[in-house]
């Protein structure tokens, strides 16, 4: 087992013929992901790299290939539409890599997904990887190793940094999930923690948060009440000034709320081992395992 994706994942790529879509589709195929369909309106009937059938619509692709997961690499202007389309085609897991979707668009997209029971990971996220089983998104496969640590993060390269630490010290991962840096996202820390808690192949979880919002505080409450597996946490942005957006649209301290220190305090109260720096992840995990 692993979380959300595994060797049975049959992936459909929205925007497969685009610049990013084609690059990452090749990476995913190279990693061993079953990329069964691509979608680009007007290119239906073509074969991507001579192998993956391309369809005009997601509905066509799902019908013909029994794809069960979609990943989205289309430009921001049409990314919300792509999410609607994937959910409307009945896909239960939709991973949106695209950055720059207006937050007001997400206020409408999220209830649409909720009504259909579809899970969105992202947007503005690096996606997921279950080492050796499946990679959906852009997390570099070579830094990951199969193992029993679950990783969930709002960030991209910071996750790679921490996963790299894990892998080089022999701590492989069950699944790594990048939930995205936007203020409104489909899958929260709690959804992932809950899945890791239920996953027989996960022994401990690394949670990588950042300034902005209160997701980490809520996640900490969840950990305190609902988790038996050890959790190690990090918060980026201790030195960020209030009121300024630190790259991610969601990484902003509003007034006095959403600061790194309040999040770290919530972690500590919930029994989460708090990393002071990325390099702490391995010693803290080893303490708890």
């Amino acid at each position, binding site marked *: 087992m692993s979380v959300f994706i595994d060797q049975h994942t049959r992936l459909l790529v929205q925007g497969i013929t685009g610049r990013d879509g084609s690059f990452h589709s090749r990476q995913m195929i190279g990693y061993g992901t079953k990329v069964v369909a691509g979608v680009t309106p007007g290119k239906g009937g073509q074969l991507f790299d001579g192998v993956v059938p391309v369809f005009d619509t997601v509905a066509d692709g799902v019908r013909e290939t029994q794809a069960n997961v979609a990943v989205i690499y289309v430009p921001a202007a049409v990314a919300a539409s792509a999410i609607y389309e994937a959910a409307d085609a009945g896909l239960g897991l939709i991973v949106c890599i695209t950055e720059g*979707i207006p937050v*007001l668009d997400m206020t409408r997209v999220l209830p649409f997904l909720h009504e259909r029971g579809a899970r969105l990971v992202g947007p503005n996220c690096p996606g997921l990887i279950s080492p050796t089983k499946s990679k959906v998104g852009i997390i570099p496969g070579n830094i990951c190793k199969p193992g029993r640590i679950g990783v969930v993060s709002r960030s991209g390269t910071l996750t790679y940094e921490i996963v790299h630490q894990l892998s080089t010290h022999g701590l492989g991962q069950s699944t790594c999930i990048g939930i995205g840096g936007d203020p409104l996202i489909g899958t929260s820390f709690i959804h992932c923690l809950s899945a890791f808690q239920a996953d027989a192949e996960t022994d401990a979880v690394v949670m990588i948060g950042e300034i902005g919002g209160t997701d980490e505080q809520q996640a900490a409450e969840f950990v305190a009440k609902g988790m038996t597996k050890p959790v190690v946490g990090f918060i980026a942005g201790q030195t960020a000034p209030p009121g300024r957006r*630190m790259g991610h649209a969601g*990484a902003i301290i509003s007034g006095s709320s959403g600061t790194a220190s309040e999040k770290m305090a919530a972690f500590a109260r919930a029994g989460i081992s708090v990393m002071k720096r*990325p390099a702490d992840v391995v010693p803290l995990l080893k303490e708890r395992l």
Partner: protein
Amino acid sequence: MNLHEYQARELLRRHGIPVPADAVADTPDQVRAVAQRLGGKVVVKAQVHAGGRGKAGGVKLANTPDEAAAHASRILGMQIKGLTVHKVLVAPAVEIASESYVGIVVDRGSQRPLLMVSAAGGVDIEEVAAATPEQIHRVAVDPRYGLLPHQGLGLGLRLYRNVAQARLAAEIMTKLYAACYAVGASLAEINPLATTPDGQVLALDAKIVIDDNELDRRPEIAALRDATAEAPSEVQAREAGLTFVKLDGTVGCCVNGAGLAMATMDLVKYYGGAPANFLDIGGSSNPQKVVSALRIITADPSVKAILFNIFGGITRGDDVANGIVQATQQFPIKVPLVIRLTGTNEAEAIAILTKAGFSALTDMDEAVKRAVAQANA
């Protein structure tokens, strides 16, 4: 993107919200002329992207056009929270019977636009929220249905016992909600929403923050950006496609990815240094972006050392290395450069850097420690 008050007022007016007539001016003479045209008492208000303008002396009441011009000559050029005042708004001074607050913010918790009202208006709503949270009333609007009439009226009745005024307030809320979606606002506030002795309900001040992700599809809103109201380094960075925030420290940071950039800054502090900036070169790996980043960082005289922290994924190490080498060919870099680089095309990158006389580290902690040591030396 923050709008100035005068821009926000104009947007609200276009959406049918009653806002008193006003004009923006950048010289005392213009202010005098506007005050004359408006007649009677006016208020002169500094137009800067900062709260607390009143406390800082940036908002003044004038009884005559000459007095207005005199106030303007003091306010124009004034610094408020580090920002220079280039423009003032001149608006008629309205006789006020009561002041309320009406605001809409995209709320992360409910994942919806949250409409908030308080009869305790005219003051910082965060202070009200902290001191008397029961004075703030909220409705999380379901965007699939929009603000429903009974929701607006229900909140209106929280502000005014008079049902006619409550209906006026509800109408303003409906228009404010529509304006949010029409202009792509992640926050829109009217504070104060004032009543006059004759029963009118008017928006006397407005704050709108546009979601940056909306700007591509709303060129007319993007055109409202006032580059003079921002730090020049941030304007440069935006034009180069970089995400940059100026800070007060001495270690210039150049990182790929926002989370890693924040973690790098934090680690600088952890090891006793102070970051001079947040800078994310983004996921793409374009040498030119690295050149621009170095140009911006080196222009800051407080920077005593520059730290690169690159974890190559989509970003290719060789592109970053080439960017560093190109930059040194284009302009002098007078402070020490500490480079940490790992991941995609690491070997090629190190070969390029070594050839150009740079050394590169692969461990983040090690690199940060060195950069801090150099900056503190």
